[in-house]
């Protein structure tokens, strides 16, 4: 059995639930309290892959911004994958996530990317429509997730783990 380590970065606007997604993924916990992330928080988790392999995901939870500033540029350097996160109840956060992706691509061309549209537990308040999701799915692996309930979280991280594990480096 071999184990590789892969660095993935979460990018998204503030308060879309990046820290909560990591907390759900790494510790299986959730808190309603909103605490802004300043700088970066780094966690890791071993993910089993199909065929007996495993990959250690080193998850960089970056401070939420609608644009990629110099600090976050420095943090994403060397990343093997990107996890874009949007809040389904805020249409603007989806546009921000896509803009961040566009900016990050200049630095990380060709790295695997997945999109998480979070807060599925608040779907009644969603501004992001089903059509929006369908369109996203045509260009990006997209999950509707709930950090609160856990929906889609494991699957999204596992998919990114699988994709990053396939990378040569």
């Amino acid at each position, binding site marked *: 059995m071999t184990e590789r*380590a*892969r*660095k993935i970065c979460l990018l998204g606007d*503030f*308060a879309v639930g990046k820290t909560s997604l990591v907390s759900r993924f790494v510790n299986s916990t959730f808190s309603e309290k*909103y*605490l*802004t*992330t*300043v*700088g*970066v*928080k*780094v966690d*890791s988790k071993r993910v089993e892959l199909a065929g007996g392999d495993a990959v250690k995901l*080193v998850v960089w939870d970056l*401070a*939420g911004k609608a644009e990629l500033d110099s*600090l976050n540029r*420095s*943090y994403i*350097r*060397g*990343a*093997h994958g990107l996890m874009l996160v949007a809040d389904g109840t*805020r249409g603007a956060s989806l546009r921000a996530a896509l803009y961040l992706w566009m900016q990050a691509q200049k630095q990380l061309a060709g790295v695997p990317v997945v999109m998480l549209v979070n807060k599925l537990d608040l779907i009644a*308040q969603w501004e992001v429509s089903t059509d929006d999701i369908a369109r996203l799915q045509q260009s990006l692996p997209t999950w509707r997730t709930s950090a609160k309930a856990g929906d889609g979280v494991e699957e999204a991280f596992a998919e990114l783990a699988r994709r990053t594990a396939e990378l040569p480096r």
Partner: protein
Amino acid sequence: MRRYPDKVSTILQRYLIEKAHPLVISVDRTGRVREIQGDPAHYGYRGNEVEPLLRLCADMRVGAESDRHAFWPLVHLAQGHHVALHWLPDEPCDHVVITDSDLCNAELAERQQTANELALAGIEKSRTIKELKRVRLELEERERALAETQAFQRRLIDTLAHDLRTPLTSIGGYAALLHPHLKENTPLQRALGAIQRNAVYLKALAENLLELARSGHVEANALQRREFALDELVADVDAIVRPMADGKDLALEVAAHANTSAAPCFDPVKLHQVLLNLLSNAVRYTPAGGRVEARIEWDGQELRMTVADTGIGIAPEYQQRVFEPLNRGAQQGKEGAGLGLSIVRQLVDSMGGRIALESAVGVGTRVEVRLPQAPAGPAGEPVPAVPGEPELKLANRRVLIVDDDPDICELLLWSLRDAGYEPEILHDPAHALERVRALDPGLAIIDVDLGLRSGLAVTQELRLAGYHGAVVVFSGAADHRTRRAAERAGADGFLAKPLEMGRFVDWMKRLLPADRQTLEDAE
């Protein structure tokens, strides 16, 4: 860069060490910690147990170039500290250098938290405003829909009123025409009498239901007071209720008594409705073999109606409810629309009267209605028998009837001929002016509801063309709005359908031009 003087450098180092709490961990190529400088406890690590910190550092170096200095300026440690983290490759050991960033970043973190919370509050606020706007639009939409429904309801009621009144005019009118031609007290005449009475009852019922549907209550100004004979009221109601009472083997007595020669002046149709509803209820809720009595007393000031039965009675808790609309179930086990007594109450209220009910379960019910005689109109004038029957001066006895209903036309034709006129019928209102010019009638009787063309438009056309004869319009929509519109169009009189043909003929006879009457006198 020039070096600081030694003394300054010493002070600066001490100051920075005090504020930045540098922690330096030196690790050899096998990963073993060789030296720790600084205080790990400041960052939440007990003693020299800095393994978690080294693991974090190793994780953070994933993807980084292994032989180069790596620097991460603001890292949030699990224990809550914000630190600046350096990885310095060196010989024979690499160094992990950590400095405390909380001093510089505590305020930044707080500002960031506040700014983000404010932004979230702003988003929530704009979302709430948007929701309020949506709710307001929805309310406006509902209000519009309600107004449309109400307008539709009014149109429906107007149509219904017209559609009910027109055939009722025919039924009542033809029955009145036939009546004198039948022998007294024959089965045929009695049958005709029943048709007439029931037509009157049906008309009253329809009027009340329409009144209720229009406004939810009977308006006092909708009353049509006139003098009437108590005996007629008793006979009419008795004739309607008796077959029901006989069918249940009930003893029925309906009687009236007046201790004054002055005739009562009330709305006889509404009065009829009150008495009929009370008696119908009494008969319906009295078991076979029981007794129902109605007494009407008139003393010149007040009319008192009492209806008593030996029926099933009403429990005390239901006695107020029986006067509410749709009160089915107040008298258990019996069917009924639950409208009768509520209409009675509204009618009594509209006439300024009072109603009282006494009842005991298994014993019977007694309802008493007291109606004050309404004061005379302004300047002591008697209340006109029929509003809208003005005293017209007709230039001749020719009458043009403009109506598209052949039954009504035929009825008016017969009636006016009987009254001594020379009527002519015109079904198509488009030719009204042409016929008026040719005929020069003393009176034009025009139906308002003429399909595509309103009778009011025809009236206006005649007036604009210089016709000075009398114009009387009639309509199933007997409301004030139509009446005022008729006046504005140039009509001299307004009649409501269904026409009471007996009174209509009497009125027309009074209007018969003098030359004709003189001619008749001479004959």
